[in-house]
């Protein structure tokens, strides 16, 4: 691993960590389990486009574990992991398909993060009726995903001016 890559990793993990902290300071008014602003997804999607699929995965997992132990608890961590993995998987598929651009991929990331959490919640409390929250999760995922996507596209565009983070 080149030293530049190590530095980039450290920078992005720190950034994701801080964004998660900011998010924990401002809980959303809507009290539906699974809904998140997903600020940290900004870092994951930036890594997805400027570094690569594998790096985005590693960053995402490191962030979830760090945040889980500091601001959350092991019991909330399983929801983050479910959301994080599903969101990474679908964003990767949508990005590789080249069918959608930044905002589309980001929206899929936001939605699948929420859906992953609700699927986990259904297993934990063993109540299928939680799917009734689904439309709220879809719409909130569109809104947060679009904002993150627009911001992310601006960041990646600027990063390309310097050079690829991966080099």
């Amino acid at each position, binding site marked *: 691993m080149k030293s530049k890559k190590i530095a980039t990793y450290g920078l992005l993990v720190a950034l994701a960590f801080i964004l998660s902290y900011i998010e924990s300071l401002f809980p959303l008014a809507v009290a539906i389990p699974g809904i998140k602003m997903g600020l940290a997804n900004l870092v994951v999607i930036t890594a997805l486009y400027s570094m690569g699929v594998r790096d985005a995965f590693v960053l995402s997992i490191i962030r979830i574990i760090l945040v889980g132990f500091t601001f959350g*608890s092991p019991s*909330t961590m399983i929801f983050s992991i479910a959301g994080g993995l599903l969101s990474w998987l679908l964003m990767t598929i949508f990005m590789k398909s080249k069918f959608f*651009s930044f905002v*589309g991929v980001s929206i899929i990331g936001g939605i699948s993060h929420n859906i992953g959490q609700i699927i986990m919640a259904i297993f934990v409390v063993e109540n299928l009726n939680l799917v009734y929250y689904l439309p709220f999760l879809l719409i909130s995922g569109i809104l947060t995903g679009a904002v993150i996507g627009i911001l992310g596209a601006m960041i990646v565009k600027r990063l390309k001016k310097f050079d690829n983070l991966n080099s």
Partner: protein
Amino acid sequence: MQNAGTSCFSLTFADDNIKIYLLIIDQQEVTMIRKNDIILIAAILLISAGIFAYIFLSKKEGSELVITVDGKVYDTLDLNKDTTYTVKGKDGSYNTFQIKNGYADMIDASCPDLLCVKQKDIHYNHETIVCLPNKVVLEVINGDKNEVDMIAN
């Protein structure tokens, strides 16, 4: 936070007005948004609208409240009898809710995020209040009114 965010956003726009335009038009580079994304958004909105419509049309008045803890039924209450009830967990955790005029609402809990207390009161069939940390679920059902064992405390 909001202030910093907005000012930063408008700054970038003023700075880079033309570049952002290029970003949208140029498909070889990092494309921000194009037609397929709009179609995706529309499709998701349509699906949500469909589910909303289904929920709205299948909405029925509930008659009973089922309390489950960790997937097991803890108690069943009549939604038409006003009461205050506390669900006690093994590890000292608790969830207190109130039934009033056919509506059930969580009023206090031991969980750290208190999401369950913030959730709105429930009245219709299949509506739920969930406390994930304590694994407590309140669910309205349309059960038989005769078989109710009320153990209110």
